[in-house]
């Protein structure tokens, strides 16, 4: 196997990691560690739990071997995995804090193939998605972020923002639709 380095593509690093080359995990962590930590911290809102979850995600990824590069981009795969696990953790503390309702989005064919934007560099992805989200009206941006990125259910958002539940649902849906339209062919 060729020598791996900071410019080695994800799929090669994954193959290398599975072949027992531990350096590959360090390079993958350098590439995606901050993203995983950011997602975890946004939902859990506790630094030490976000650190634990970041570690958990990378070790699960190493051990389970169910990531298929031809079906998913690693960055989004790790984001989805982190979000899903963070929501589970949130649910486990829900008796003291808050109820987590149907926050685990449906997963039909979730990883069938990476969309064009997922095949771009992380920097390009960030640039395009950040541009697209700033084009949303504040009300849509806020509820979509609270719902998807912070793990609040629609009813929790309604309560926090003192907004009718129906309005929250509509804003989330409209925000998603507009974001998808702005991203256009970049998401397929």
């Amino acid at each position, binding site marked *: 196997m060729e020598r791996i380095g900071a410019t080695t593509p994800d799929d090669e690093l994954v193959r290398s990691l599975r072949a027992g080359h531990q350096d590959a*995990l360090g390079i993958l962590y350098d590439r995606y560690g901050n993203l995983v930590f950011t997602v975890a*911290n946004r939902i859990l809102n506790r*630094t030490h739990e976000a650190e634990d979850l*970041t570690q958990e995600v990378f070790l699960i990824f190493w051990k389970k071997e169910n990531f298929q590069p031809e079906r998913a981009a690693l960055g989004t795969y790790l*984001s989805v995995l982190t979000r899903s696990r963070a929501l589970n953790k949130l649910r486990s503390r829900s008796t003291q804090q808050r109820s987590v309702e149907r926050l685990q989005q449906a997963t039909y064919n979730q990883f069938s193939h990476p969309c064009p934007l997922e095949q771009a560099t992380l920097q390009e992805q960030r640039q395009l998605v950040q541009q697209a989200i700033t084009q949303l009206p504040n009300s849509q941006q806020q509820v979509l972020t609270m719902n998807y990125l912070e793990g609040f259910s629609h009813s929790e958002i309604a309560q926090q923002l003192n907004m009718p539940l129906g309005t929250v649902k509509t804003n989330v849906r409209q925000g998603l639709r507009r974001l998808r339209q702005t991203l256009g062919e970049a998401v397929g």
Partner: protein
Amino acid sequence: MSNPSALSEDDLILVEDYVLGELSPEAAAALERRVRSDPALRQELCALQATLRLLPQAMPVLEAPPELRDRILTTHTLRSKILTADTPLPATPRRSRSARRSRPAGATIPWGKIAVGIAAALALLLGADNLRLRQALGDADQSNRELLAQLDQNNERDGEVVANLLQRPTSRLVTLEGESNETANAAGTLLFTPGRWQQVVVSLGNLDPLPPDEIYRMWLTLENGQTIFCGEFNTDEQGNVFVELRPDETVPQGVKATGIFVTVESATAPPEPSGERVMAGSI
């Protein structure tokens, strides 16, 4: 709301609600059936899912603490070694230090090295500037080897338990030593995470097997003088025990644990430490 997609407004709302997790299980299953035979529906579903998958990229990226990288790579190395160690492990007698040093180069991973790895990893996890801890880890070398030997002789689940405990940034290792004449040679290790007493792993050796009507019990002492029952166990025929205990009682918040001790009790006695103390260790 505009709808430039090829779908009807009703179908578009249905797909949006689906990816947002707003459909009932029945409605979601019905949509999934339709998606299989409807390319336009499938295309929109995939695009909406991709949009959500990419949404985390909109967040300002936080810098993970620099030490997290070391922690993850150290744990990975440790777990790799635990899961791939294939050297048959001697039970008793144990090899001497000089015998281990003379091991030929190029041999498969020796279990002693793994034990040193565990100690080193623990030192990293706990902060290597703690002199008392370093001494404890040095002293615990023998016990570590016993723990790893047991670990390797058992199944992967044991490895998981230890590895999970090791993953925690504040995990600690406590050495236990024999206190009575009969248990002067007994030694062992307790692996735990302060504040998370629901799970501790205990590895002890050279402890005499007990008759069926007696049992070893482990206790935690707190700074307020309270004693907490951790669990009970017996040894195998060689006098070894490797066990995961899950204490029912929790340590009151803000109260520090100061020590661990083991007693021999009647198997039917109530959970009070009234029997002879045979092993102890300080936290």
